[in-house]
């Protein structure tokens, strides 16, 4: 018989235990699997050719599909953060398409039980579009890093804070609520916005056709105002 290297523990009363950490990891992995599956389903249904055109009806439809899968998952804000990280950093998620990814993340944030959510996107090389879509009243979404096009479109009373830059069509069609972009913002800002406020810490490259609402550039009101006109590039 080979020497038993654990012999002195022979009489130790063994009981099957598991680390709380292990349990947490297992649970988190199970949740992440389901979130990932929902995203894959969304891609299957809405981006069959891995091409996704941003049109009003495609956004609405994609959001409905995302909501359908998300409803079945019990997740937390941390899981959304993990999903964002996993989008670029694991092999398990095959494609990062900025549009559907943004719709899906927005749906996750809107449906999360937490009122305040922080998304760390600064590590991502790809800028996600459509972050903050339909952010409802009472929710606060803080994004560390930059966001892509259509950030905060159709916000429904929530507060979106972007620590970095935001690209074109930010706040388009928003009805109420607040968007704060700490650095610069792109063209068509606030296109067809019906209400709410957009605050920009840096420069606004161009305003869109704004119906109602307010846009501030470095704490100075630029819409409504005399100096700035729709679609004028600065």
């Amino acid at each position: 018989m080979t020497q038993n290297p654990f012999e002195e523990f022979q009489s130790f009363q063994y009981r099957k235990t598991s680390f709380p950490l292990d349990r947490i990891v297992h649970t988190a992995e199970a949740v992440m699997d389901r979130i990932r599956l929902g995203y894959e389903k969304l891609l299957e249904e809405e981006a069959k050719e891995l091409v996704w055109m941003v049109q009003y009806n495609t956004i609405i439809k994609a959001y409905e599909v995302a909501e359908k899968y998300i409803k079945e998952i019990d997740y937390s804000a941390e899981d959304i953060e993990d999903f964002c990280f996993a989008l670029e950093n694991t092999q398990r998620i095959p494609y990062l398409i900025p549009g559907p990814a943004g719709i899906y993340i927005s749906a996750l944030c809107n449906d999360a039980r937490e009122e305040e959510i922080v998304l760390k996107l600064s590590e991502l090389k790809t800028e996600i579009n459509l972050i903050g879509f339909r952010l409802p009243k009472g929710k606060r979404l803080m994004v560390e890093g930059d966001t892509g096009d259509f950030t905060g479109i159709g916000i429904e009373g929530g507060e979106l804070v972007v620590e970095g830059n935001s690209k074109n069509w930010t706040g388009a069609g928003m009805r109420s609520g607040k968007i704060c972009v700490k650095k610069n913002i792109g063209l068509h800002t606030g296109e067809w916005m019906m209400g709410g406020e957009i605050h920009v810490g840096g420069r606004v490259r161009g305003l869109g056709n704004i119906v109602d609402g307010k846009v501030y550039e470095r704490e100075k009101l630029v819409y409504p105002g005399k100096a700035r006109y729709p679609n004028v590039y600065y």
Partner: protein
Amino acid sequence: MFDGKVRVVEKNGYQKQVMSIYRFINDRLYYNRPDIEIKGEPYNSTILFSLLTGLTGGKELIIGEPGLGKTTSAEFVCSLMYQFPLGVIWGSEVSGHPEQTEEKIIGRPDLGKLNRGEEDVVWTNFSQVPVKIVDEINRLPETKQSMILDGVDRGNWEYLNEMIINDEYCLFATANYQDGGTNTIIAPLVDRFDVIVESRYPGANLSFIIGKNRGKNHILRHPKYEKDLYRVLKSKVAYEKKIPKMEEICNAFGEHVRETAGVKPLKREDRDRIRAEMEGLDLDLDASAFTRMILSELSFCERYGQKRIVENCEEGCHYTGYLCRQIRNCASNRLPTSIKSFARGLAWFLGDSGIDIEHVTSVMPYTLSHRIQWKDEVLSQKERAKRDDPFQIFLAKEAVKAVLQRYREQSDHLKDALALGSKIFQGAPLEPPEGDHPIYAEIRKDIRYRMNHGERLGDADDPEPV
């Protein structure tokens, strides 16, 4: 914080005798402050570990600035633990210098006999006495350090075709910090030392008293017994026959010390009995599990199978939070032997009935610090940290503290995993234990090996493959 006084718990039997030796050295011979606290009692690490080295027959490397009592502390301990007068100890010391030779360290040809055509060896005092002190070992050139490897390790001293074997010996070596005349101690020699301690500056006030109290060496000197011992050592009888004669003189010297100084040195039979008592002490499960845990961190590499000094950690390794990431080399098999031996000695000294985790954690930094080769980034990160200990010992203490923290978080799970390992090893159809620490991976490796090959290895009736 220590209050500067040494409070020692008196125990019955030999513990009391050894404690009185500790106290005698601390009060009258080697003035220094306590710098280590074990089970609520402060001790001076240099004296404590030197005593344990003498008791366990170990090997100790004493480092420190010049003139801070490295050699003298070892001499006092050797004299009182082995009943040798200081004069003999001085005459048996080997001093490290570039011109040192094998003939001065181990033995030389008997020139008289050689003239008659006979080959015989005259053994040095160093190779014959059980207490061996190598002064300034790092002044020995690296090529000459190899000469004492085997003797240091096994007590075998070989010259020409003859050999003497010390059945009882302990070794103390001193080393100054690097200066113009020092060399690096080669890794195989460093690894042979069980512990490393620093003989520290005692502070301005004690240092001032040391200057006043010259002549303390006389307490442990006796010219007549020294001459007698030299006569025996020089005599041309077989080494085995010299030993009882030396012991006889040593006993007489021990009696003289008891009468004049009031402290009773240890006789050979005392030491044998103490060692027999020590043998009866085993590590408890926590001490064993914790030791296994730290050993796994000091040897584990998921990618390359084990730590090797020639291989570097991979970026993005899962095990970045453990010691394996911070060190370059792999723990040797001598490390657990040193830990167990000194923890056992300490447990015995404190009169405890077994070796617990505090004994192990107390000795561990002193057994680890000279054996670990830290990565440069770790050294540069921590070199300016506020500390009381020499850098290597400080790093080892920090490492032990960190692993102890990890152990406390998962001690039950780890003991369960080891118990489960034992059951699977015995053939129980159970699932291997899970866990994130390297030790679990090591347990799984052992079990997997057993599952794949164990039955074949263990079954003597297995038919030979055709």
